[in-house]
């Protein structure tokens, strides 16, 4: 099996400030067609800036060349496979980008009169309905900007629900396999967290929940499939237990790509869940964002949704509803990441219900194919089944001195982005691999072949693995130095 050639022409690129030449500019301003003004005559000295901000002084061609050269140092989904567990790095359709670039959809001010925004509001309302039907909820807010923002929103809804019933509850149950954002979102929201141990089989059990459940538990936060790639088989029983104690069930929807058309969280007793449009619904990650983290809720949480909601009037027009007396308020300005919503809307319209279901089926097929291929190669702690992602570890390589980090870095030399590493925390040295549905079986075979060579090298010439990567522009970066002597800006005095 051949692996991709990874050598490429990279030009070392210094920060753009280095290229600055006084007097140069890439600005294109219209001629001033009104009288110029003297700032000093308009504003008192105390308000005026004495020194201009040190922005670079460069021409447009220099800017274009700089950022083009810089971009070539990036790995990205259009270039190769990104098997990042729980991140769902699937192909981002170009049609969705074209849709989101239509000027009549983008050049809109959020405070234009509503009758001038009917197309945009219709899209938001429709997308809300699609997401609600996909996951089995009464309503969905599209305001949160990312998954963690959605978690914050969901927890606020839970708090508001309990307070409305005259009870303050202070605890949230969180399995030890949870994403780090879950406990962090609880803290930001003033909840304390109670960790729940996963069973040896990798599942959450009603017994573990029962042992810590009391009338101070506001909610349980469940990721399903969990971060071990396993469907929480007893989710409905657990939901019933928690409901019986007056608590609510939050589901982290980061792994929803395993479930489309097969399972709806709302049908299993989940009261609130965030979606990640930048995972499940194929919108690009943009090198770290923006994403979008809509939150779906069952009937009992609807009164508490953030303002404004988009409502369809009897005459078929759309309007913003700001008058929701029990609302938690708002989590940001304006209506949310509309530009991201447009792409998700386009993706859902292109695929339809059957297409989404097929996407899930092929995502799960790809992950299982990797599971079956990898279990002879590496330690796979749950070798018999998985949903959309599979966990392996460096456990069998202990004697070689080669670690998960080394494997991750060496994969780069074969043209692959590393998987998520050292997560979930319950598996020592975890490699969390999520291929997604848009990878071909041939690509998966190449990935397995690369891992096979790496494992062989680990046993025979470990230094080759430990000194990786070698074909990237730079070798391993010194992260300790960066943290010990933080240099966080160009030309700072640090």
């Amino acid at each position, binding site marked *: 099996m051949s692996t991709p050639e990874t050598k490429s022409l990279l030009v070392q690129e210094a920060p753009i400030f280095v290229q600055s030449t006084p007097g140069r500019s890439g600005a294109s301003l219209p001629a001033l067609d009104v009288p110029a003004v003297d700032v000093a005559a*308009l504003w008192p000295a105390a308000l005026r800036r004495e020194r201009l901000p040190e922005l670079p002084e460069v021409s*447009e061609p220099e800017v274009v060349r700089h950022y083009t050269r810089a971009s070539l140092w990036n790995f990205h989904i259009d270039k190769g496979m990104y098997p*990042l567990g729980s991140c769902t790095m699937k192909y981002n359709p170009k049609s969705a980008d074209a*849709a989101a670039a239509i000027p009549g959809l983008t*050049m809109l001010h959020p405070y234009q009169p509503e009758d001038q925004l009917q197309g945009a509001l219709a899209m938001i309302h429709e997308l809300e309905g699609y997401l609600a039907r996909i996951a089995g909820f009464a309503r969905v807010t599209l305001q949160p900007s990312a998954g963690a923002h959605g978690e914050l929103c969901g927890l606020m809804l839970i708090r508001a629900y309990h307070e409305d019933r005259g009870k303050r509850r202070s605890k949230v149950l969180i399995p030890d396999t949870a994403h780090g954002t879950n406990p962090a979102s609880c803290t930001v929201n003033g909840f304390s967290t109670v960790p729940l141990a996963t069973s040896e089989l990798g599942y959450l059990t009603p017994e573990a929940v029962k042992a810590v459940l009391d009338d101070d538990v506001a909610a349980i936060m469940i990721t399903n499939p969990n971060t071990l790639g396993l469907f929480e088989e007893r989710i409905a029983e657990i939901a019933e237990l928690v409901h019986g104690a007056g608590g609510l069930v939050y589901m982290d929807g980061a792994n929803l790509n395993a479930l489309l058309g097969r399972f709806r969280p709302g049908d299993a007793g989940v009261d609130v869940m965030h979606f990640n449009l930048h995972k499940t619904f194929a919108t690009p990650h943009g090198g770290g964002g923006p994403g979008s983290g809509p939150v779906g809720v069952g009937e009992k949480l609807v009164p508490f949704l953030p303002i404004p909601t988009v409502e369809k009037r009897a005459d078929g027009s759309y309007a913003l509803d700001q008058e929701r007396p029990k609302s938690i308020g708002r989590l940001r300005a304006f209506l949310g990441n509309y530009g991201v919503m447009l792409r998700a809307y386009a993706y859902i319209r292109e695929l339809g219900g059957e297409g989404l279901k097929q996407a899930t089926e092929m995502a799960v097929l790809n992950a*299982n194919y990797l599971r079956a291929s990898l279990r002879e190669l590496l330690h796979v702690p749950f070798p018999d089944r998985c949903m959309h992602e599979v966990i392996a570890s460096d456990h069998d390589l202990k004697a070689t001195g080669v670690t998960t980090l080394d494997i991750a870095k060496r994969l780069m030399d074969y043209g692959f982005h590393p998987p998520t590493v050292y997560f979930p925390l319950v598996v020592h040295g975890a490699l969390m691999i999520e291929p997604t549905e848009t990878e071909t079986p041939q690509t998966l075979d190449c990935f397995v072949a690369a891992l096979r060579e790496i494992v062989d090298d680990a046993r025979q010439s470990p230094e080759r693995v430990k000194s990786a990567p070698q074909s990237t*522009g730079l070798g391993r970066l010194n992260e300790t130095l960066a*943290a010990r002597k933080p240099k966080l800006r160009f030309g700072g005095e640090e």
Partner: protein
Amino acid sequence: MRYLPHTQDDIARMLRLIGAPSVDALFASIPEPLRLKRPLELPAPLAEAQLLEELRALAIKNHPQSRATGALVFAGAGAHPHYIPSAVDALSSRSEFYTAYTPYQPELSQGTLLSIFEFQTMVAELFGMAVANASMYDGASAAAEAVLMARRLTGRSRALLAPGLHPEYAQTCVTYLSGMPLAGGGSPIARLPLSANGLTDLAALREGLAAGDVACVLVQTPSFFGTLEDLAPIAEATHAAGALLCSVTTEPLALALCKAPGDAGADLAVGEGLGLAGPLNLGGPGVGLFAVRDKRAVRAMPGRLVGETVDSQGRPGYVLTLSTREQHIRREKATSNICTNHGLFALRLAIHLSLLGKTGFEALARQNLAKTVFARDLLAEHGLRPRFPGAPFFNELALAVPGGDADAVVRQCARRGVVPGVALGRFFPELKDTLLVAVNETHSREDLIRLAKSMKTIA
């Protein structure tokens, strides 16, 4: 489906290796009663040409500002549109930037990391601060995170908001802090009363600070009403009470001409880069800005940070750093729960600021100010008077309309193809007579004359 490469042969071969009889069998772990047994209720799938037709049909139900149709928009209020050069779109839509993941693997992410390092530098420069982070979601959530950070730094609980803070930012702060009520109940967020000149009243501020339990004061400049706050005396009063001052800027272009918040004594600075980073897109995504004046405070900051370092051979490179503050390491002890941020719009802002450069940024700001002065004089001839007379302004005007009903003015002008601004009654019941008019470099002299004329026909 064109995004799925699997042929029937592929599927059969893969199932054989897995040892599963069917794709259905892979879902056996979903308990039978929980399985969805009917198709999802969604519209039928569309081919690309049909899809884009549908979206164009949605687009014509909107009214964007357009020379072709004559639609003119003077709305700002925290979303200040500017012309975005083609090079910004061309570079930021390179799939190397656009389809990359968060740069957790630095050897494969130097392009993203370098551009964020530049972004951090530019934001710190604009605000006159030591350090800026790699972005927040938006200005409002950045303001709320600043309150949380000030609470961590001071050990105090409350925040005071200036009357000129964007009302949706104020709502966001209240919502973010809803899980942390004061010991005696009630929100830790309090808003100073609207003063006669719309600016922060020092006596009211000192009174608000007197109890000694305020962690920070949030002051927006240019304010929601377009007027400039003098931060220095506010900083002095705030610091005298042991609290921190956080400046808020929803129109960073003003920072070309206005004293940098850091130079005026602000400890934290947050802002919104939406208008300089992209089309308004109904208000998002933009990019939240977050900076601190004292670099020692950096370990209490929320969000990602990019730092410079060296590789295994001593060559310079960049990494995400100080991540022991963040949720994926610290979990419930993290400084914030933020993970995904607005990196692509941080990149777009950095590219735009690079194109404008030091001189272009200043020239653009001067144009905005000159056009706003012209608009003020023109609108005054038609009976629109500054609602807060005497207060200096940048590129937005709070004007009292003749007849006292700003909302009616908006509705009537809109019928003539002009959105003259934002009527403030929706935010402040006492400002029903006030129209907030935002002017920028895309408005020509003729546009401004048309704005004024559209008023005249009504008055």
